[in-house]
């Protein structure tokens, strides 16, 4: 039997590229934060050289995530109601509170790290890790609790988000450590990068397993879930999902990390691929999720949020995301210039001197 849709109203997609960038930034932020706590909280001394970079990165990325939220609101001037009229049932409301709390706590934590106050940094770190993970798990819940959207509505969503957050945070730190090594002639601690690489490979495998279970469950569920699975694996989203997210963003980096254990450039490439793959994952969740029509018979086309209905055109959306990204890069470069990111705290004095010199070399 053939069914043709003659007339139906689809109000388009509520969320566009800006909301694709939002979980991407919060994920990177939470991931970087967890990496920065590896040395101070979990006592892994070999990760100490990257603790400062990662905490600065976590704060900047969180700021960018907040900006994306504001950019996506159609009434950003009313935002204060989200603080004064908290709705405990709303994951979006909790996201705002958690992001604010996390921003405050990571600023205090960063302050302690920059003052070489290891005991206080440890306490603050222990307090902040749950908040950092909660921010991202809550982002997962923002999507996961929507019944009408089959790709989103799964109990795995918060877990997937947290795991991919850690994956992307690790990858970003590998990339930045190698860039600093090449561009700013700061000698990167190669062993740090390699051990980060091992962690990264392990977390990618966990991520792949979660995606696999999610897809299998979708294939054995109702019509909408099945359609969503087909959409991701055979349909319109085969390139961003199978091509970029699975192959380019997960399988190839794992191969590189396993085969080229002692290759700095290999780690760099793997890191870049993973960050791209995680962005593709956010795209697949947000855009592919909304592509399955809630009440219609087919697919909703992603034409961007049209100017007449949502205030942003497709181009404007892309420009907003690029602008926020560029702001983040500027903030990071500025902090790399004015803050001493490479000082290894609590170590011998000569080490501090070398890194100060290298900091000047960067200018």
């Amino acid at each position, binding site marked *: 039997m053939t069914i043709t849709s003659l007339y139906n109203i689809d109000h388009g997609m509520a969320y566009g590229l800006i909301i694709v960038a939002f979980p991407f930034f919060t994920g990177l932020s939470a991931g970087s934060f967890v990496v920065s706590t590896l040395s101070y909280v979990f006592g892994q001394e070999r990760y100490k050289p990257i603790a400062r970079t990662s905490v600065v990165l976590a704060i900047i990325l969180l700021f960018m995530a907040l900006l994306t939220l504001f950019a996506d609101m159609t009434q950003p001037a009313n935002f204060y109601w989200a603080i004064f009229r908290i709705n405990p049932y709303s994951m*979006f409301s909790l996201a705002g509170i958690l992001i604010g709390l996390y921003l405050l706590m990571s600023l205090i934590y960063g302050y302690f790290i920059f003052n070489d106050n290891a005991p206080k940094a440890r306490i603050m770190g222990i307090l902040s890790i749950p908040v950092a993970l909660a921010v991202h798990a809550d982002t997962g819940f923002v999507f996961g609790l929507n019944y009408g959207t089959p790709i989103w509505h799964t109990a795995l969503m918060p877990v997937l988000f947290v795991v991919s957050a850690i994956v992307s945070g690790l990858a970003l730190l590998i990339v930045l450590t190698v860039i600093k090594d090449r561009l700013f002639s700061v000698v990167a601690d190669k062993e740090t990068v390699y051990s980060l690489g091992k962690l990264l490979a392990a977390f990618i495998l966990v991520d792949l397993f979660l995606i696999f279970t999610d897809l299998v469950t979708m294939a054995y569920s109702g*019509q909408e879930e099945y*359609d969503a699975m087909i959409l991701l694996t055979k349909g319109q989203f085969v390139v961003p999902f199978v091509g970029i997210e699975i192959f380019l963003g997960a399988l190839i980096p794992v191969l590189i990390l396993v085969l080229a254990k002692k290759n700095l450039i290999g780690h760099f490439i793997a890191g870049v691929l993973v960050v791209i793959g995680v962005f593709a994952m956010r795209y697949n969740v947000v855009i592919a999720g909304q592509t*399955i029509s809630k009440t219609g018979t087919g697919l909703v086309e992603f034409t961007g949020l049209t100017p007449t209905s949502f205030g942003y055109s497709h181009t404007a959306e892309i420009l907003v995301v690029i602008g926020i990204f560029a702001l983040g890069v500027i903030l990071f470069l500025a902090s790399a210039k004015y803050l001493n990111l490479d000082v290894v705290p609590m170590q011998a004095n000569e080490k501090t001197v070398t890194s100060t010199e290298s900091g000047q070399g960067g200018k």
Partner: protein
Amino acid sequence: MVIDLRKCVGCHSCAVACKSENNVPLGVHRSWVKQIEKGTYPNVAMPMLPRLCNHCTNPPCVKACPTKASYQRDDGVIMIDTKYCIGCKACIAACPYDARFINPKTMLADKCSFCDHRVDEGLEPACISTCIGRARIFGDIDDPESEVSRIKNTNNVVVLKHEARTLPNVFYINPDSDVMMHVTEGEEQGGRTE
């Protein structure tokens, strides 16, 4: 509200009346009629489904709203307090029925309000008074003596996405299952909704 699809002729006048009553801008709709074609000639049908906000008893949009701008009135109507709306679109994503949208004029979340301004004055909603087949019946579902209660309780009624536990308050009599559900268009994925 009960919509008796045995009496619906598919004239779309409910959609027109809603647009003009509530000044709904171009491109967005508070109320519309979904139509599909099914079967192969000569055994064909063109089922219709008038759509509007279901004013759920257990509304996911009200739960999703971060500022409590979306709320449930004492009589069950789901309303938006525009003063508090920040335009985060959480309610639009949460609604399983695609009933909500951002109004391009006001840039606020918008949806069917059961014509609260008319109902409060004792009038019927615009779509009810314009329906030429009297397919739509509106009233107090809690009052067992009201017309809407009698019709709802003495007919086989169904609601959209019953399994979502939203407990919708728009009941349909005699709808087609293919127009009620998400159905894959054609034989393979790839068709798109108009």
